């Protein structure tokens, strides 16, 4: 018995050491070949709760690279992708990114899913002479008090997400709302924003719940919801699927006049649930394949032709991230990450979101966000269909004053 404990302890310590061993912070020494290929480090979770998001990111990134290579490369350079699994943890992200940057000389980093992973890597980017594009994590801090000269975000941040949600909160005439949110920065920021907006509208937030990330059983939360007025759900990934499924089983979701989901009503969520009772639910997202603009339509068409199915939201986000790297390289006329970072500041370029600008002050993209309604398509599948576009001037009008880039 004692032996079992000792050995278990040893095994766990060994595991921890093996993940921590390669996460040092030594500066990079090797140089990239100025005429060589553009090496891109695709660091995504291939296991754990965010594995599906990782798979979507990789699809979008791969599609962008294949397309660019088929058209003769970017500024005369071929695109080479190097892949690594970040295990969905901050330590894993740091170790995997460092390995690709220093061993494979892949200085453009993309694909990380969650904000804590990105926050572990961004402080090292300058020492490694690398550049990172954020294609999913929403934390305001990444383009706020923790902003760095080498990190650029092409998706909405928490503030922009809440401002997008405000569209529905003001549009829907409910006298009271309930809220359930993930108990970390995304859910907390969302709930605070929702509460403020609802107050301004003269209605009331009656029930306010927070569930830990990865909650398996939402029964205790569902029993506390009133079922009256509207419900705002700020959960993502597997939590959103779990909550909506159990909410339908309890019959709680059906009682609300309005169910509004911040970001969580993704294609993957709707596919997993495949429940007609969700028709009419409202959602928001940083980008939607059903967005009403010519560039999105062209991308969705090209992607569907090649893959036989349409892109999920994060496929588009990954693709947009690659478009941003390409635009920066073309503007800089160089593949040195330092030159590309300078070129990207304030750059206006064409993307699947139409014309977008990378704000110089905090490296947050100025791009539209979208609101939509769940509808049943002709193929019998559910989809969040974009019904309105919130322009950048409304979703995120001011640079984050907490960001000091120099």
């Amino acid at each position: 018995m004692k032996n079992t404990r000792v050995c278990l302890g040893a095994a766990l310590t060994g595991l921890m050491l093996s993940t921590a061993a390669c996460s040092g912070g030594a500066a990079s020494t090797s140089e990239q070949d100025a005429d060589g290929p553009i090496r891109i480090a695709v660091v995504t979770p291939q296991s754990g709760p965010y594995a599906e998001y990782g798979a979507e990111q990789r699809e979008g990134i791969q599609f962008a690279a294949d397309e660019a290579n088929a058209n003769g490369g970017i500024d005369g350079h071929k695109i080479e992708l190097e892949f690594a699994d970040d295990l969905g943890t901050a330590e894993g992200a740091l170790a995997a990114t460092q390995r690709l940057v220093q061993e494979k000389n892949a200085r453009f980093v993309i694909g990380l899913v969650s904000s804590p992973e990105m926050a572990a890597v961004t402080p090292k980017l300058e020492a490694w002479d690398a550049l990172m594009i954020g294609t999913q994590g929403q934390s305001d801090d990444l383009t706020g008090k923790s902003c760095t000269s080498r990190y650029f975000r092409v998706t909405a941040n928490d503030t922009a997400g809440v401002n997008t949600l405000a569209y529905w909160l003001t549009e829907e005439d409910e006298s009271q709302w309930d809220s359930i949110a993930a108990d970390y920065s995304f859910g907390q920021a969302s709930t605070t924003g929702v509460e403020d907006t609802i107050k301004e509208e003269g209605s009331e937030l009656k029930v306010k719940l927070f569930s830990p990330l990865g909650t398996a059983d939402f029964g205790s939360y569902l029993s506390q919801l009133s079922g009256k007025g509207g419900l705002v759900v700020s959960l993502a990934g597997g939590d959103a699927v779990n909550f909506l499924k159990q909410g339908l089983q309890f019959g709680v979701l059906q009682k609300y006049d309005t169910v509004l989901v911040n970001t969580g009503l993704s294609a993957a969520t709707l596919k997993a649930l495949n429940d007609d009772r969700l028709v009419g639910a409202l959602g928001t997202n940083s980008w939607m394949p059903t967005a009403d603009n010519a560039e999105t339509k062209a991308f969705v068409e090209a992607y569907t032709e090649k893959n036989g199915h349409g892109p999920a939201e994060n496929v588009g986000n990954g693709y947009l991230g690659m478009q941003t790297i390409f635009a920066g390289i073309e503007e800089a006329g160089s593949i040195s990450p330092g030159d590309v970072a300078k070129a990207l500041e304030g750059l206006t370029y064409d993307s699947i979101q139409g014309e977008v600008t990378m704000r110089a002050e905090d490296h947050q993209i100025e791009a539209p966000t979208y609101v939509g309604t769940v509808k049943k398509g002709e193929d019998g599948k559910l989809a969040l269909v974009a019904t309105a576009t919130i322009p950048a001037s409304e979703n995120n009008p001011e640079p984050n004053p907490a960001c000091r880039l120099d």
Partner: protein
Amino acid sequence: MFVQVLNGLAFGVLLLVLSSGLALIFGLRGVVNFAHGAIYMLAAYVALSISDRTSFWIALLTVPILLALAGLLIDRYGLRFLVGRTPLDMVLLTFGITFVVADVVQTVWGTEARTIDPPAVLAGTTDLGFATYPTYRLFVIAIGLLVCAGLMAWLKLSRTGLFVRASGDDRVTAGAMGVNVDRVSATVVALGFGLAGLAGVLAGPYLTLSPAMGTEILITTFIVVVVGGLGSIGGPMIAALLIGLVNALATVQAPTLAAYVPYLLMLVVLLLRPQGIAGRRTAL
């Protein structure tokens, strides 16, 4: 309040079925089965495929049997050879199985979240007088409690149950008295895997399927077994229901503490009663 008790019971029963399997295998083979969560996850995915093609009821019957067979093979060709070796070898084997199963599931079923629909007869809600409650959860509670009552009766009353308890108490003496310890161990490992399989099938329509579901619940199951007492079967059963109930009530009464409740309970038990609620006084 009653609804919260039912919520606690539903999740507690799932932990109960899982932890009984874990405790059984530990009690007899002395193996901390790290693969238990992976087996539970695999069962849920196999149940998904079977219920998509046939019905949920067929999945409920076949999946536990299939996994019990897998358990039998793993015991016959794996665990049996490692008896007497250091516990680390056992850890390597069961930990290894976790990785293999996780990769197989990701390759075959993908990484996206999946759901199983409960059978039509269990899909709605039932009016209990004081509240309406999902029928499927009531079914999980009933099945889980029945299976565990059956398991206890089998251990206490049957001849094989007697052999299991005897071999768990003292392997060598039991062998000397003519008990075929290897066969008893194989039965127990098969039963443990079968119970993990049952928990997986039951969890399918209740929770959501994802490759991470095994790891998430395994940690809570380990806490259940530690609180209940290593080497005991009844202890973890009480602990599973206790943790389910305390968790459900804490979520309502003290939401900020809810996530810590299982760990706090474990801390208190380890400080005041290190052998757990019903653990053995002597080391194995």
